């Protein structure tokens, strides 16, 4: 038998609906399942790899069935591998097939049904991770709930890129090996979050598309003071953007414009200077 995606991270293999519900409720709000007419048993295999802010799952449904999920505190996107299905939010239903998938916004209930021999990968991303990244990128505070377009066409370059990356990650992490360092996993998660925010249209897309305004000189100064005070430890750009109250773009553009170098270059120089002339 060919290895299935994420086989190293089994969540459940079952023919029993109660067992399936119990397993699913470890990740999602507990769904209500319904079997096709005449069917008695199900035949399901689910694998799930949970990183920090994102999770990647694989599901195979051997028999046709449907599930209704209540609201979750994460966004979710479905990447069908084979077979046919349908994902419905309210009145709007989207086909699930080789070229089409669906995205569910955070805090939204949805229904999903699969015909026999359906398989997909699913990406889940914590709402807070999405809003944090959005405000770091744009400098805006994210007050209205995030709302994504539902339908996905995997022939579009941005969606295709995200899909390829999800499959790549599922494939590579399935190889038994020394685990990736924490920092590398975080960077991979950040990359997928960025790709997700780019591939899916949402109610903040316009902020990501506008040109970054320069942060003010005072924000650059505040950032420099913060770097001076914290140079003895690892510092991220997200953290600096937060301190400056500007987006990463604006802050970096302002450093370039007023100082001729980037914030992290300044950090490197502060450390180099201190090592040459240690004080205190």
């Amino acid at each position, binding site marked *: 038998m060919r290895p299935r995606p994420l086989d190293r991270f089994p969540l459940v293999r079952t023919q029993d609906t109660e067992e399936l519900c119990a397993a699913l409720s470890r990740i999602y709000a507990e769904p209500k399942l319904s079997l096709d007419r005449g069917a008695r048993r199900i035949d399901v295999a689910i694998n799930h790899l949970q990183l920090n802010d994102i999770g990647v799952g694989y599901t195979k449904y051997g028999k046709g069935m449907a599930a209704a999920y209540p609201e979750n505190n994460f966004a979710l996107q479905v990447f069908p591998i084979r077979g046919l299905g349908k994902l419905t939010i309210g009145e709007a239903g989207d086909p699930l097939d080789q070229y089409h998938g669906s995205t569910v916004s955070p805090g939204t209930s949805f229904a999903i049904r699969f015909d026999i021999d359906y398989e997909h990968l699913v990406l889940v991303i914590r709402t807070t991770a999405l809003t944090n990244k959005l405000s770091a*990128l744009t400098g805006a505070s994210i007050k209205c709930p995030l709302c994504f377009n539902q339908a996905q066409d995997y022939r579009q*370059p*941005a969606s*295709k*890129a995200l899909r*390829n*990356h999800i499959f*790549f990650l599922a494939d*590579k992490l399935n190889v038994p*090996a*020394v*685990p*990736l*360092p*924490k*920092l*590398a996993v975080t*960077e*991979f998660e*950040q*990359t997928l979050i*960025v*790709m997700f925010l*780019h591939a899916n249209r949402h109610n903040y897309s316009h902020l*990501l*598309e506008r040109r970054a305004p320069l942060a003010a000189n005072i924000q650059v100064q505040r950032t420099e003071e913060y770097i001076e005070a914290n140079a*003895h*430890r*690892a*510092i*991220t*750009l997200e953290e600096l953007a937060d301190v400056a109250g500007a987006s*990463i*773009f604006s802050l970096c553009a302002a450093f370039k414009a007023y100082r001729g170098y*980037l914030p*992290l*270059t300044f*950090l*490197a120089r502060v*450390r*180099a200077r*201190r*090592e*040459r002339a240690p004080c205190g």
Partner: protein
Amino acid sequence: MSSSKPLDNFPFVRSRSVEEVREAMARVYAKPLLVPVRGIAELDATINRCHLPHTALLFSSYGVAVELDYPTTKFFSLLVPLRGSGEMSCGRTEVALPPGTSAVASAGVSHKANYGADYQHLILQIDADVLTSKLASMTAAAINEPLRIAPQANVKHPAAQMLQQYIPLLADTLSAADPPFPTWWIEQTEQLLMTLLLFGYRHNYSHLIEQDAPNAAPWHVRRAEEYIEANADRALSLEELADLTGVSAFSLFSSFRKYRGYSPWAFHAQMRLKRGLASR
């Protein structure tokens, strides 16, 4: 017609003339020495280059066997062979370049390469200042000595494997991106590439980012130990060790004291003893 090659929509040079290819390469490198071997006067060169904010991704194929002599650069080059055979040498280190491997040429270090007629590769070039800043942000240290990355991947590290397999996916993704992906998308991807590179390859700051192995000695200490062990039968000079590791004699001594609690000479004497040689 020839089939499409990676990054074909970012043509840099397509030429049969050795001089023309050299002129084109001089736009990126200080003018390299490029010589077709065995008296062949014509190339069949294709170089594609996708320029990104802090990095560049290249595809190159020369069509005939060539020798290249690269002067020092301000960027790090990660070579990912796709087909054919080749080899690269940095100082005394020689690295074979079969498909399924990768190699690095450090900034500030000249290197030579021999490529067979059917050799093709992708190259990721990363600006040295940006990579150094990334390293600084991942650690709490001052980066005074220039970053020097070992030419050969640390094949046991999952990040090395992942990076090498990720580069072709990225080339495909960038080729298919129409319209091009926004800067914030690409910059995040660059962060991921730099993180994987700094974990997947040994360098003179590896010890600072290996949180999982807090007691691991830095690369230059281990390199010096290997060398001393291999050459225990003869007298070694301090200059020789400093030259080998690329750090100053002073920092080599203090690293030995810090991570090993003894001097390189004590280690040398120990190795001689182990082999039954008289102490010097």
